[in-house]
């Protein structure tokens, strides 16, 4: 994989390289260079299979990480391309022209993370959710428990006690000045 990285760096300006396993590595790429790099990898380096496309929300850094995982079956290699994009008004170039299946991933990212992929087919159609009116649910700042509590009633009558607090109350709680 290191060899591949060395070859690629001669043609592309690449970021950090992380070797995870003998057959899996991750490379950080700038958003503007991604499309050309993917095309090169697909057409020249044999990475013909788009395994997945997904996002990671680094809320603290104000960034989304898009991960494009591609596979070279002949060489049994997996390469993950990491693209960091700004979290506000997140937008990224679509790759549905390279892999038709990518359109589905991009639809999902639009719906679940709120990342725009201009030009991607049927991007704005409902994919998984229906009538959703809150923040995109996979964003880190969307609290699913809070939303669930506010939206769906639960059965009443549940209560619990903390063992330490219960023992304090039962055994030695503040009895005041006797």
């Amino acid at each position, binding site marked *: 994989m290191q060899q591949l990285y060395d070859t690629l760096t001669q043609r592309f300006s690449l970021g950090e390289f992380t070797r995870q396993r003998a057959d899996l590595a991750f490379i950080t790429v700038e958003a503007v260079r991604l499309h050309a790099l993917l095309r090169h990898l697909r057409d020249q380096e044999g990475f013909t299979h788009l395994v997945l496309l*997904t996002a990671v929300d680094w809320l603290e850094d104000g960034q989304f990480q898009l991960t494009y995982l591609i596979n070279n079956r002949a060489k049994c290699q997996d390469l993950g391309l990491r693209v960091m994009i700004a979290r506000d008004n997140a937008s990224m170039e679509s790759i549905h022209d390279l892999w038709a299946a990518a359109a589905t991933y991009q639809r999902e990212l639009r719906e679940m993370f709120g990342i725009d992929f201009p030009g991607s087919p049927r991007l704005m159609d409902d994919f998984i959710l*229906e009538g959703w009116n809150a923040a995109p649910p996979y964003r880190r700042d969307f609290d699913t428990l809070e939303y669930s509590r506010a939206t769906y009633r639960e059965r009443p009558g549940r209560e619990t006690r903390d063992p330490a607090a219960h023992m304090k109350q039962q055994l030695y709680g503040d009895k005041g000045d006797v």
Partner: protein
Amino acid sequence: MFELDRSQYPQKKADGTLDIDLTSGKYLKLWQGPQHPGITGNMAIELTVCGDEVVDATTHVGYLHRGFEKLMERRTFMQCFPIVCRICVPEPDFNEYCYAAAVEELAGLEIPELAHWIRTLILEMGRVNSYLMYLGGQAGAFGQGVIGQWTTYVRDLMLDRFEELTGARIYHMFIIPGGVRDNLPDGFAGRMEETLREIESVLADVDRVMFHNAVFKKRAVGVGVIDTAWLDSYGITGPNARAAGVAKDVRKDQPYLVYPELEFEAVTGKDSDIYTRADVRRRDLLLSLDLIRQILSRLPKTGAVMTKLPNVLHWKIPRGETYVRGECSRGEYGYYLVTDGSGYPRRVNVRGPSYTHSIALFERMVINANISDVAALLVSLHTYPPEIER
């Protein structure tokens, strides 16, 4: 089957969209699902038909969305383990394996040898179950209800084996990060052998009644052909790719667990139609039976099944990311796990093979198909909705 070349129909407008005027009265919108016998699981296909020919199709998913990837972000690494199997009902074990393997890789855990063998055994047992379900469904899509009656029966025998091994029928929750929960019970191999024989005898019947059946051949041969050129573009994996003649099998390509030690060849076909896909799966099922026998005859009899874990209540995993894949009955199943040094996964992404098969590929394939073939086409891709929407 159409007598004319229909591939140019419906025509496209200049902007690439289909030239379909719904108000013209020539077309009809038809929903297949979610409540429909001709659908796998709980999903829907929105068909636009002209006569009985499909001219446009949209797959609707999300009926089973529970937000696993979100829920896992607020569960500790051990707490995630019981929920992942719910992502796929007919073959839940792949979730358990991929998740456990990803966690172990990032946490730097080595699991005992015996656990590798038992994991492989479980995965192959799950594959058998999944294929048996499929065979029933594929035959059922053509109205052959009896195949489903037989295969569901033998699948249930396999569920009995699952139950005695794992303690549950459907959601086994057995492949735990760190190993597996237990060793094989006494006499398991013998009972498994009986089950395997029963399955083989039913498969022989299935071969005669389903695969050597004029009706089935008439309906399935030459229908729903997947072009090899589509494989990469649509991300096609598993039997769908192998039926097109490409020996894409993660068990061979990037062997995991104990597959390097087992003797087998990837099963392929060449015609890439419904019939070939069914046949590839049938032969892959026979292969799985053989693999189970190999595993049971070769696995270590004793030894630890779990490695020593840190206290799982405070288990933290250093920052990292990885992708772990396996070959499930439907294709490449994978988990992309990102950790950030805390006690919770930063992000988990589940790559189910149905994701590409039942949306991009299916919507492409079903154009110009006959309405009565839609169910069979969908089944022949062996898709399963919850792994699409998670």
